[in-house]
């Protein structure tokens, strides 16, 4: 089984220096890309079917084709690596940032070349201190090696790259909020259209890609679309960094073929549930994805299959709910997060999420009324897609709507018992 993304990463070891990265074949894909036209690079990545690993699953190569090209295109153009991993339960980009920073840089330089960007940013979350040190070092090494600057490897193509360390806010992971943050503005999301490829950072064409997405790019350029497609188990190509957290025997992170079933992740890789607890459900890809339950354990964890099962692959880092943990309490924790992290820009989100959190607290503390369950259900629609400025509140409603469906009995038990029966 091939593991291109993590082949250089050894737990507990320092990441490869530029020279070590070059010795393992690093930066040859960049040399190859610079001999192709930007459109050829775009096509190669598009043909591979690579889908965005940040959660949305949009086809990366297709996203790149939305950027205006040629002499008439507005300048400067920008590429941004979204390294603001703040989705609760997600810890996959951390591994790539800490473990092999040159792989990200090579992917970024190739992506930037493909859209003919003049400048690139890494938008890094504050808490990733180790990643920040490794990236700073790698950027300096890449400049020395001629991989960044005004004339990369004598190709005539130039790119500057800047590391931005954020000050910490979930909202910044939304791509238009991220662009406002980079401009030094309050990071509220922007209305779309216009979309960032047309009018992004400082009003110029901009592409924002996730860290894991960009790390795939050098391997696709070097090995081709068919190789990439062959890595997946189903129609969705490549490998995926899958994580498991919660009360399992061996929580962790693994690079596996895209489409690995949930059961295999849970039982083989995470070692099954801890002694004394049983599986009840899981959020497949972070806090803003719908619950899946036992009947879904054989669903392949790829974008389309998880969607068919009623959830989203999201970041691919699953959070496991066990039978000794209260589902209502878990939802209260999730909705507290979303209510706190709402940017306050649109009313349904800041007001609605606060009410949702309060109703869940009432259930937990014995103040709830029977009609509150209908109210909660109504909110999953009122804060759903189309009613808010961005995807934060609709994302917050995903675990709630599925939680109400699969754990209805637990909600009713809270009403009957006058509080949380787990306490």
């Amino acid at each position: 089984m091939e593991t291109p993304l993590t082949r250089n990463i050894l737990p507990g070891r320092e990441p490869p220096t530029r020279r070590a990265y070059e010795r393992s074949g690093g930066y040859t894909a960049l040399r190859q890309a610079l001999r192709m036209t930007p459109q050829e690079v775009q096509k190669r990545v598009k043909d591979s079917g690579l889908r965005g690993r940040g959660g949305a699953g949009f086809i990366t190569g297709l996203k790149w084709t939305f950027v205006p090209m040629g002499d008439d295109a507005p300048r400067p153009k920008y590429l941004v690596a979204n390294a603001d991993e703040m989705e609760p339960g997600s810890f996959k980009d951390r591994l790539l940032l800490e473990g092999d920073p040159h792989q990200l840089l090579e992917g970024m330089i190739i992506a930037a070349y493909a859209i003919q960007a003049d400048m690139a940013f890494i938008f890094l979350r504050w808490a990733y201190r180790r990643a920040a040190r490794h990236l700073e070092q790698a950027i300096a090494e890449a400049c020395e090696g001629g991989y960044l600057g005004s004339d990369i490897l004598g190709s005539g193509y130039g790119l500057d790259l800047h590391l931005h360390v954020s000050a910490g806010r979930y909202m910044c992971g939304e791509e238009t909020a991220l662009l406002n943050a980079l401009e030094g503005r309050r990071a509220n999301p922007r209305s779309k259209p216009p979309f960032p490829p047309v009018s992004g950072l400082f009003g110029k064409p901009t592409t924002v890609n996730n860290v894991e997405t960009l790390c795939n790019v050098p391997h696709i350029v070097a090995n081709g679309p068919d190789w990439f497609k062959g890595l997946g188990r189903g129609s969705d190509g490549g490998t995926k960094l899958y994580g498991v957290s919660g009360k399992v025997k061996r929580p962790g992170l693994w690079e596996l073929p895209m489409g690995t079933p949930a059961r295999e992740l849970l039982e083989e890789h995470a070692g099954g549930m801890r002694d004394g607890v049983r599986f009840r459900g899981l959020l497949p890809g972070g806090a803003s994805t719908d619950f899946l339950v036992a009947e879904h354990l054989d669903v392949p964890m790829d974008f389309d299959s998880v969607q068919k099962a009623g959830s989203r692959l999201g970041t691919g880092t699953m959070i496991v709910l066990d039978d000794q943990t209260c589902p209502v309490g878990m939802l209260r924790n999730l909705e507290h997060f979303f209510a706190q992290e709402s940017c306050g820009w649109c009313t349904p989100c800041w007001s609605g999420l606060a009410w949702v959190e309060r109703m869940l607290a009432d259930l937990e503390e014995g103040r709830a009324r029977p009609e509150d369950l209908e109210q909660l259900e109504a909110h999953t629609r009122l804060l759903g897609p189309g009613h808010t400025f961005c995807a934060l509140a609709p994302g917050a409603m995903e675990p709630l709507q599925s939680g109400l469906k699969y754990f209805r009995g637990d909600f009713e038990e809270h009403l009957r018992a006058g509080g949380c029966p787990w306490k």
Partner: protein
Amino acid sequence: MLSAAEQRDIEEVLPQLPERRAACIDALQVVQRHRGWVSDEGLADAAAFLGISVEEMEGVATFYNGIFRKPVGRHVIRVCDSVSCWIMGCDRLKEALQARLGVAAGASTADGRFTLLPNVCLGHCDHGPALMVDDDLFGDVEPQALDGILDGYR
């Protein structure tokens, strides 16, 4: 007025940015690094240096959980309270920290040694419950391990 050292630190990032105001967060981080927190005066100094209004700067500063608009202790403890750590018992850990430090979450100890803050997901979910002390990350933290961890921060 920003000190010469603060100005130098902010000017270091300016050439990489298309607009001066884009250094907004960098400037707040610089002020915080030099002064420990961002007072009204520090905020106004940074805003003036970048040529943006105090109100806009405040809008940015209060947006982030990493910018302190109140004084903090010599060491800041951030205990993760997001979902994976919650399942693994972060409430117990937070209670143990509050009892040990004698302060509620959000407050500083009387001797100015520690500030205890709840924090959103630290991205260490396979090792919950997790916490950070200053720039250092700790995972699988049991309440009885707290003494050993905190003793390292005087």
